[in-house]
């Protein structure tokens, strides 16, 4: 940081041109980085792609080969190839960020830590990766990843610095190479997952903990933060903050939720330092804390810095990370986590449109999952939840389908009233009302016209109640007006529901019951449902017809396995090459677009961000439980732009696996799926399977199959 400043100053002094540039343009650049949380959009990569994205696989392998010292010659090739392939897997997810505020911050902390190690600074690259795990990851080529989950959990820069120092030591001490050497003898490449490939020994972890102190101390951070880092790790399974749940969770004060629906008290937080770590990659927190306490004594004259970089910048990136955490929980269908986190963030960001829109999305999606009969899937592990969130789990477990549906309408309607301009919320509101028609054994006539609290008050003051009798003008009254009038009379003259906790849901949408729009939407949906019932059999014509429009090919997932199901890197690379070759031969000109970074010659930041959006789209599709309904996309707006730009494209997914079953038997199978980007519906899916190994004919056949009906 200090070095950068020096160069900037000299540059400014050197030329007035630069002077002007910095005074005119620099403020713009700074303000461009400010995040408007009201219009929060998921973080995207910005600017020129870093080296690691543009290098080809071979270039990176060749470069690393010279640097590997701890792996024997026999396995050096394998090591470099496998470790780089794993890195590719991470990069291809589209989740790695560059040029964004979070990565910039992390890079600044990295520079601070490495200010006395210029060569190391040159070799290492730091990136933030969108992931809710509280984790940091060091990969062999010197690329270190910090998850948004970690950024959301830590409290200050110093804690981040310690975690980063820990990862730097893993790189410095070649821990990956050393542990690869150990695992090598038993088996190699059984898995491509980075965690499996680089299962570091506990000794390496202790060593990294201890040696990280040197970097950390030299950078001038406070020793008091170190124990907290271990606490952060220990409690990382909880959400990024822990606050009490009260009635404000449901927003509208008129919304009556019986307290009997909640568990009596929240599950206690049980995190335990001295857990059994025999099956874990890291030693348990107790052992690590003890070991580090001894190490801490070896250093003296600790400074007391928690932050070197402006504290506002840290708070800014922490907020971004927390918003990202909410978003990822929606994508992963962790609805209650998302709601609880929104509830936490609401305290700080009142009336934040992004949070409230996301809240509407969560409620609507959750309700649809419940209507699909899948409520238990998002409530699983309720018993293991600790802290306030366990109350939410308990509450939603108690709700039945009808109660959840009505509560959802209540929530989304309230949000609609707070943000009447928001198109997305309005659409969600209409959708949830339509969904009411799908509730089993639901009778709209049983809905009450007054809120539960008003009804209670009325009961208590029965004598003072004055019935409202007006002369009614029936001229020009439509059928629905008449029905409504009759119902109004009914509900004011007689109480249909008893005032007990079980009936609370009938009072939830008291203000909507006589709303014309509400009734129309509901009736329309009812009719539609009746119509659907009468359709006995309809042949899926889409399967036979050719698809029109553009095709977006998402990064195909190809894996070749050798003997005993072991991952075979060479064949996998061949697989990708052949797919690329066959696509060149067979793809219809101008209609097929590749949104992937496997074919990295044309890597651009724009297409990388698009890949990232598509990855999220696919993740949402695969995690959701409400298949009957059109997908409610968290990136609705961006997706709309994307669809418009590519002229209503279809997304093509290819997942293929080649396996050597025995000496003479090969198996090559793939799944091909076309997805409508607007609704998330699968337009066509086919299965391709041949008894061949990875070769031009088998891969060509797959590509042919994928493109045969477009």
């Amino acid at each position: 940081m200090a070095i950068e400043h020096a160069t900037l100053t000299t540059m400014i002094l050197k030329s007035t041109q630069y002077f002007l540039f910095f005074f005119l343009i620099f403020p713009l650049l700074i303000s461009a980085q400010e995040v408007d949380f009201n219009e929060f959009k998921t973080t995207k990569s910005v600017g020129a792609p870093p080296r690691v994205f543009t290098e080809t696989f071979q270039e990176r392998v060749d470069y690393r080969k010279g640097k590997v010292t701890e792996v024997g010659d026999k396995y050096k090739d394998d090591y470099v190839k496998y470790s780089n392939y794993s890195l590719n897997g991470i990069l291809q997810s589209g989740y790695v960020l560059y040029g964004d505020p979070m990565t910039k911050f992390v890079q600044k902390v990295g520079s601070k830590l490495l200010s006395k190690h210029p060569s190391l600074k040159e070799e290492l690259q730091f990136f933030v990766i969108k992931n809710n795990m509280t984790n940091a990851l060091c990969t062999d080529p010197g690329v270190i990843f910090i998850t948004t989950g970690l950024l959301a959990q830590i409290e200050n820069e110093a804690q981040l610095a310690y975690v980063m120092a820990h990862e730097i030591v893993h790189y410095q001490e070649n821990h990956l190479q050393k542990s690869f050497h150990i695992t090598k003898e038993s088996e190699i490449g059984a898995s491509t997952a980075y965690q499996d490939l680089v299962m570091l020994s506990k000794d390496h972890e202790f060593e990294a903990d201890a040696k990280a102190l040197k970097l950390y101390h030299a950078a001038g951070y406070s020793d008091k933060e170190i124990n907290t880092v271990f606490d952060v790790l220990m409690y990382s399974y909880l959400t990024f903050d822990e606050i009490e749940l009260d009635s404000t969770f449901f927003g509208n004060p008129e919304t009556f939720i019986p307290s009997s629906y909640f568990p009596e008290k929240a599950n206690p937080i049980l995190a335990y330092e001295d857990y059994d770590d025999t099956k874990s990659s890291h030693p348990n927190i107790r052992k690590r804390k003890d070991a580090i306490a001894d190490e801490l004594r070896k250093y003296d004259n600790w400074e007391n810095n928690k932050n070197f970089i402006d504290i506002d910048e840290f708070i800014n990136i922490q907020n971004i990370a927390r918003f990202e955490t909410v978003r990822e929980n929606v994508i992963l269908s962790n609805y209650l986590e998302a709601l609880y986190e929104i509830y936490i963030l609401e305290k700080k960001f009142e009336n934040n449109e992004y949070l409230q829109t996301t809240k509407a999305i969560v409620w609507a999606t959750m309700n649809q999952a419940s209507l699909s009969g899948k409520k238990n899937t998002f409530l699983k592990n309720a018993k293991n939840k600790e802290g306030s969130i366990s109350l939410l789990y308990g509450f939603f477990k108690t709700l039945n389908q009808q109660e959840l549906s009505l509560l959802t309408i209540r929530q989304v309607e309230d949000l609609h009233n707070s943000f009447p301009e928001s198109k997305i919320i309005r659409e969600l509101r209409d959708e949830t009302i339509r969904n009411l028609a799908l509730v089993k054994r639901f009778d709209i006539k049983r809905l009450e016209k007054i809120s539960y609290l008003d009804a209670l008050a009325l009961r208590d003051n029965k004598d003072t109640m004055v019935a409202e009798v007006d002369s009614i003008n029936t001229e020009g009254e439509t059928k629905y007006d008449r029905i409504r009038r009759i119902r109004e009379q009914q509900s004011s003259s007689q109480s249909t529901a008893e005032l007990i906790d079980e009936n609370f849901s009938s009072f939830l949408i008291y203000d909507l019951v006589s709303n014309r729009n509400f009734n129309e939407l509901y009736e329309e949906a009812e009719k539609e449902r009746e119509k659907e019932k009468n359709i006995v059999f309809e042949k899926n014509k889409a399967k036979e017809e050719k698809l029109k429009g553009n095709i977006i090919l998402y990064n195909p997932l190809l894996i070749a396995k050798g003997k005993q199901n072991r991952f075979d890197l060479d064949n996998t690379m061949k697989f990708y090459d052949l797919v690329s070759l066959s696509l060149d031969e067979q793809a219809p000109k101008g209609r097929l677009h590749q949104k992937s970074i496997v074919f990295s010659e044309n890597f651009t930041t724009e297409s990388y961000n698009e890949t990232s959006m598509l990855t999220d789209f696919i993740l949402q599709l695969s995690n959701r439980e409400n298949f009957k309904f059109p997908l409610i996309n968290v990136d609705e707006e961006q997706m709309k732009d994307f669809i418009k730009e590519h002229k209503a494209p279809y997304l093509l997914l290819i997942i293929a696996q080649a396996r050597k079953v025995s000496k003479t038997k090969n198996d090559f199978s793939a799944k091909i799926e076309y997805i409508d980007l607007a609704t998330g519906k699968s337009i066509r899916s086919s299965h391709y399977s041949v008894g061949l190994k990875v070769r031009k004919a088998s891969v060509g056949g797959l590509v042919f199959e994928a493109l045969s009906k477009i």
Partner: protein
Amino acid sequence: MMKKLYYYLLTVTLFSLALNTNAQNTYFFNQRNLITVNASINPRLMALKSNKSTGMYSQDGLGLGTFYQYYNDENVLMGGHMKYNLMLNTSYGRIFGGNKIFGVEFNYQKQHMTINESSNAGYQDYNYGYDQKVIPFLVSTPVFNIYDIQLTYGLFNSSYIAPNKHIISYGLGLRIYSLSENENYRKDALTPFTDLSHYMNDYDKSFIFVRLSINYTYRILITKNLSFDLGINTNLTLTADFDPQEGFPSQPGYALGEGAAYRREFVKSRLAYQTFFNIFYFRTGLSFAI
């Protein structure tokens, strides 16, 4: 015979239904037509008895195959031992319904007819005392051209996209034996058959059998269109009744003179008999899918 056929067909149908699950509706590179050119080889599995010994109990265990005799260009009687059949196969098939194939197959084979399994049953020329020359009879063995025409129905291994590695197919059709007329048929070295009707009754009339076959083929892909095939055929010909002990040509009691050397019933019975021993063929060749 109809009863037998009924059981065969029932087996075939049930077997096909059992295999026909999980069929895919698409084809490998959209290949729907399969043209094959194969050659099949088949060991003639008829047991041979000794043609040297005249002893009553020492006739067994000489091997397998067919003895035949013919006259060469110098009209000298020659003997031969035919151990294998060679058959040429061509077929065309159309793939439908994902993994099924329906087609037509043509086979061609040329062979000597098996008259008897040892020379003892035939004429014996004694050179009193020491030298025994065993010649069953002097008439040339008939040579037949065999044509098969059959309809085939096949199933590819349903877990793979068709056409793929494994095909089981069934064929039902006709096996036609027709006497090869361009041979040097002779009654003996001095007497050629100038008129073949003296050689065989109704010599220009084919012998027709019903043929049922069950085949397995393993395809090894060379390019996306061309495959190398390996397979096993079972040729189950529905035979006529036969009686191998009667009607040897030129035997005592056999109609000679103005009558034909080979009676039709005898030939039919011998053809049926030998087909019974020629069930298994090994097949290899190329197939082209488009």
